């Protein structure tokens, strides 16, 4: 019984840092990464509307002091921007597969 209690305490302590609330610095780092990827996509003339709206949502949440939500939205924006960059790069050749010949 004592052993399992100790184990449970250890587990709780181990998980605690991961569950801590995000702060402004976390948001700024996440937003900067998302913004950089978004700018790269726009430079490729392949920006997605959902990237823009996720970035806006991140900013709005941060302005309201909700850094957890701001970090989550920034990460989503970064993932979307990276997907659009991948799309633009792969379509440089892939479009030919759809061409009527």
């Amino acid at each position, binding site marked *: 019984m004592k052993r399992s209690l100790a184990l449970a305490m250890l587990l709780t302590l181990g998980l605690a840092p991961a569950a801590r609330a995000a702060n402004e610095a976390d948001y700024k780092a996440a937003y900067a990464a998302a913004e950089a990827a978004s700018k790269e996509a*726009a430079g490729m*003339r*392949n*920006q*997605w*509307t*959902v990237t*823009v709206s996720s970035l806006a949502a991140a900013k709005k949440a941060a302005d309201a002091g909700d850094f957890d939500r701001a970090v989550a939205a920034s990460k989503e924006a970064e993932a*979307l921007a990276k*997907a*659009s960059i991948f*799309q*633009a790069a792969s*379509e440089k050749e*892939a*479009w*030919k597969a*759809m*061409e*009527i*010949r």
Partner: protein
Amino acid sequence: MKARTALLLGSVSAALVAFALTSPRVVAADKVDPVADAKAFQNFFFQKFPNVKREDFVNGPYSMNADMKRQWQEKEEFPPYEFALDAGKEMFSTPFKNGKSYADCFPNGGIGIRQNYPYFDTGEGKVVTLELALNRCREANGEAPYSYVKDEMASLTAYMAFTSRGKPMDIRIPDDPRALEAFENGKRYFYTRRGQLNFSCASCHVQSPGERIRAEILAPALGILNAMPIYRSEWSGMGTTSRRFVTCNSQTRAVPLEPQADEYRDVEYFLSYVANGLPISGPGARP
């Protein structure tokens, strides 16, 4: 030793033969050939829809669905674009402040010329669309340009299209590598997937014409611009070619380009060229 030399020579010869056989095909595939492209494009639709009359493709979804076609034909007795047509005619004939008019900017006074737009301007080295030419005409005469996506531009192009109704699309590609490049860029834009939905123009208008996308019936790409500008019930108003490109992009969740961006001008050039020979039917009406 002899056997090894023979084997080596044999391999080299085989490689050379293989190269000789494959290289012309690679060159041919990379060569820009608008005539062959237009032929292939038209044949694709003619074969996919053998029961659709060739000149009927310009009527978009109505060429794909008999019920919709009947409804549209009845609607054409009092067409929803009529107001735009009247407004466009008046705008076209009203002189600018300097006394000149649109007629001074276009061949044949701007009447019956829509089928020649867009064209490749060898001086500028770029494609010039009708909408762009109209705004350039305004600016050259001291007038502010119109929005490319709003009613005034739609009304003007509606009137000009009407004066060309029934005339076959007649787009030229001059003997200029920049014109071929513009055509190729337009083709690439047309087939390139974009937006979070990963759609290209061709995903809807080549792979799925006649199919439903939600409540809409998709129009075939062949002749799709011959009906522009269009009154769309969905918009409760008129829409220019620029507006159509912008909204298509948004619907795939791609951020649209600025109206009359090079890419849009080029894709208009490509789509119009491959519709050569099909009649102008604009202004059109769509659900």
